């Protein structure tokens, strides 16, 4: 932990602000970086298709890494969590999902991991309520979606993927429900179109770097990957057209990124994002990973290993 040095003028300014706002005088800065892979990690969990209705099959995969690169076929245990979280829970899943009692295992076969979305997913994690039960429908996420938790244990790590589950629109007039059903297209996983290094304005393949070099990296995706989708606005009782935002997470086993994550919000029409990677001072092989996520739960990832001369 360290405190970033600041100028006297800034100190005076911050003191002014601190007095007025009562904000804390000193916030610790942790040296830990999400983008640095210093041991086993699960970086992404992916479902194909990205959105599925209850009772349909999905193929699950994950990006599991360590300092030696991507871990292929790691010993892993998959399962659907069947414990819904409390309505006022901050976390993505119920704390019960960390135990075994709430887990419905998914068979891990040689051909991959194929699971079937629980038939009752829309009542466990979605807006459906039993007829006459008078229970409160679950709230959707900001994109209007509902998600079934998928737990992965691998390399002594635990991660939760959230499988977007196709459920009916709740609490909307019938005509809106019909229009929504007709307009809505299930989410598709995005793709990483390219990974390049940018020198001035010229893009080139990213294959090598020198020690201590700072390399501007660019991740591109297709315009269609930031999909448009209908969104039910309960305030105005209308359907509105929205577009996915895109986030990219950067990881490296050595050196550092300026940004741990970058991306474009839904109003930004650009289809790329940049980050600067600072190569380590020592020569050797460095593994880098790039995970692209859309705001409806779609995932894509790519990896590259380069030699630092």
């Amino acid at each position, binding site marked *: *932990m360290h*405190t970033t*040095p600041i100028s006297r*003028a*800034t*100190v*005076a300014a*911050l*003191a*002014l*602000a*601190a*007095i007025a*706002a009562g*904000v*804390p*005088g*000193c*916030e*610790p800065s*942790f040296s*830990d970086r999400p983008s640095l892979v210093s041991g086993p990690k*699960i970086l992404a969990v992916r479902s194909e298709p990205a959105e599925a209705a209850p009772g349909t099959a999905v193929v699950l995969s994950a990006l599991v890494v360590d300092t030696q690169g991507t871990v292929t076929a790691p010993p892993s245990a998959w399962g659907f969590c069947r414990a*819904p979280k*409390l*309505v*006022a829970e*901050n976390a*993505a*899943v*119920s*704390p019960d999902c*960390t135990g075994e009692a709430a887990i419905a295992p998914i068979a891990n076969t040689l051909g991959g991991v194929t699971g079937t979305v629980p038939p009752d997913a829309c009542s466990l994690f979605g807006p459906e309520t039993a007829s006459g039960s008078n229970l*409160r429908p679950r*709230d959707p*996420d*900001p*994109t209007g979606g509902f*998600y079934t938790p998928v737990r*992965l244990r691998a390399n002594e790590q635990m*991660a*939760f*993927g*959230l499988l977007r589950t196709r459920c009916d629109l709740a*609490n*909307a*007039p019938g005509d*809106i429900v019909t229009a929504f059903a007709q307009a809505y297209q299930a989410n598709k996983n995005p793709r990483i179109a390219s990974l390049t290094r940018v020198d001035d304005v010229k893009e080139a393949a990213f294959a090598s770097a020198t020690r201590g070099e700072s390399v501007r990296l660019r991740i591109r995706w297709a315009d269609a990957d930031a999909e448009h989708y209908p969104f039910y606005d*309960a*305030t105005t009782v209308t359907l509105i057209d929205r577009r996915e*935002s*895109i*986030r990219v*997470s950067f990881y490296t086993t050595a050196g550092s990124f300026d940004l*741990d*994550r*970058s*991306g*474009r919000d839904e109003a930004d029409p650009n289809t790329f994002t940049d980050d600067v990677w600072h190569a380590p001072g020592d020569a050797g092989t460095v593994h880098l990973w790039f995970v692209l996520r859309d*705001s409806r739960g779609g995932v894509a990832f790519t990896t590259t290993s380069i030699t630092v001369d």
Partner: protein
Amino acid sequence: MRSRSAKAAWLTACVTLFACTCSIHAVAQEKSSDVGGAPAKRRLTKMPKLERFVPAEYPKARRDKGETASVLLTIELSATGEVTKVTVQASAGADFDEAAIAAAKQFHFEPAEVDNKPAPAKITYRYDFTLTPSPSPSPNPSPSPNPSPSPNPSPSPSPNPSPSPPLPPPPDVTTVEARSTTSRKETGGVRVSADEARRVPGTQGDVLKVVQNLPGVSRPPLASGQLVVWGSAPNDTRVLIDGVEVPALYHGSGLRSVVSSDFVSSVELSPGAFGAEYGRGLGGLVRVDSRNIAKDGPHTFVAADTLDAAVMHARPITEDVRASVLARYSYLDALVPLVSSRDTGATFPIPRYGDFQAKTTFDLGPRESVDLVGLGSFDALDRTVSSPDPGSVRSVQSRSSFERVYARWVSSSQSQTSIVTPFAGYEDSRQALHFGGTPATLDVGSAVYGLRASRREKVGERAHVTVGMDALGRASNVSRQGSLTLPPREGDVSVFGQPPGDDVATDREKTHVLNVAPDVATDIAIGPATFTLGVRMENYLIEGSRQTPKVGLTPEIGFSRLELAFDPRAAARIRVADGLVVTAAGGFYRQAPAPEDLSAVFGTPALSVSKATHASLAEEVRVTETTTVEVTEFVKSLSDLPVRTQLPSPILARVLTQNGEGRSFGAQLLVRQELTRGFFAWLSYTISRSERRIVGDDRYRLFDYDQPHVLAAVASYEVGRFTFGLRFRASSGYPRTPVVASTYDAKNDRYDPVFGAQNAARLPAFYQLDAKIDRVFPLGLGRKLTVYLDVENVTAHDNAEEYVYSFDYARRGIITGLPTIAVVGARLDF
């Protein structure tokens, strides 16, 4: 750890509050100024009246010799009519003097009134020692309610002392001090005059910030103006200005109070067990009395400092009408960018606030007046943490304001005091937060109206009856969208900076909560004891536009219900011995649900009122004429508190339940040296424990704001034109729930904490020393300049304000509070 260079830089950080002033010429107003800090001469509208007479012990030797005598005493009275000091003006000999003083100290008076408001007073009293031949003397003579003077009592011999009735204090010997107060002190309450409060270090002269240093009050979290009193939630304590409820005592940042210090006469904190006149809160009561407007000339005050600018003007308009207006506006948000990088304002939220007060007093007669008052306050705060990652963008936009207008009619006579205060106003609160793509907005606009009325009348020789009406209506429009977990509630388990859940909902509703509460109370004096019995008849009308969530375009189905209850309140005050008073008080209290809690989506329309029971026992010892020691033990129990449902699938429109209950208990000590010869000091210490649980839980957990130990020591001494002050504060840290592990959320690329037992950890203890020095420069023509230096955290102690975690919760750090901050300011009065 903070680096040495950075720490040195912090240590040298000095914020200068400078005051620039302009003048509107007014001559020789210093002495009579009502706003400049100098005592003001005011009109005595009601003489103090002897209610309880205690006969003196006739010196045996004198009686044996048949000697009579008269001792002329000066008796100082508090605003409640208690004798605070007795001195001899004209001696009749040490034995007669001692006997007269001992007796007079046990007197009790109906208080004097200044400008029709109860006030401390000083009277001249002649105690006659006479001997009468009566074979059946009255051993305990009843004082005349309106005693006639006996300038030449007949020296009729008597075996027992039979003092003459007191001399009514002639106007020319009655001195009424400027620290006048308007409302009767609540049992167990601590009242601080504005003159004392403005000297407290660390408050930058803000009179109402002194409340945070009174016993029973927890140290508020940094960046908040919350009041946690006797283990009650911040929103459970009511703030009244001249009896009119306002939503907060401080601006949102806690930096300033919502009314100017120059508007305040005194502030009183009643942490609990208050009387039947007040309600609607499970916690404590803060009562602010406004200042009277001086009658003897205009006064103008204009000032500016680093934080804000203020202007005030007060003047008599006619013989019977006088008015004042005060306004304050902050500009720190505009000032900081001039001396810092552009993004400082984006990184550190810089609040903007303002307030105004206007008051006009109409004297309708010698004992009757009407005050017309308008006051308002606003707060604004904008903060955006930008990021190239759309999931990491955070923004906060906060707006809040309130306005009140009220008329306060006061009429008093020898036997009664009547006060009627109708009021109306508006409150608006708009919070818009965005965590990545997750919104959390809450807008509440409320029209407020009400009436407070009371009539206190003497009934017989030893009793008073107070009949009152306390009504408050609140019609609210509530609009809310976003995560259910924002704003957070007491009992939520989270860590600082944790993003909210990304399940979002939306709702709009209208609510109307009307509380009409007639009350009646009786004070009965029996010997050395005074018993107060009261009852408050609570009538709650709770209405809302939706009892179920909105589904499409279905029409609204509202709800309306009436809840009636009787809440008894009682107090007993017993003078156990000379200088020792024991007070016991208790009662039942209720509080209506907040408008946003009645939402069919985010709350529960069926919520009822929450309940509390308070009990306290206080022992007050007057050590010297100006020094008191008071120990108070208290216990509170709370029930029917709204809490979040513990079900993953709750019933429709039942997100909140009333299954919360709590308790708090403890004791507090207050050693107080009243302002005498320029010196005052107090030491307050509170030890307490406050707990909550869900009905059915086996064990209680610690209340989120539990603070077992709170200590505050304040001292101020005036030497010539200098005044020195010190304040030391120490307190336990707030409870926090430890993080024992974390899980990775691969959809949002973030870690979520896994928590241990709720509130099982605690922030490190806090302590801080503040110092203040000021000097007055007389400038002639009635003007004076006061310059002060207020240094907070003199020892630069790194106080822990919050725990913060690394991104994966593997490591924990501490956010520390402010370093040494020196504030220099100036004030010109003329």
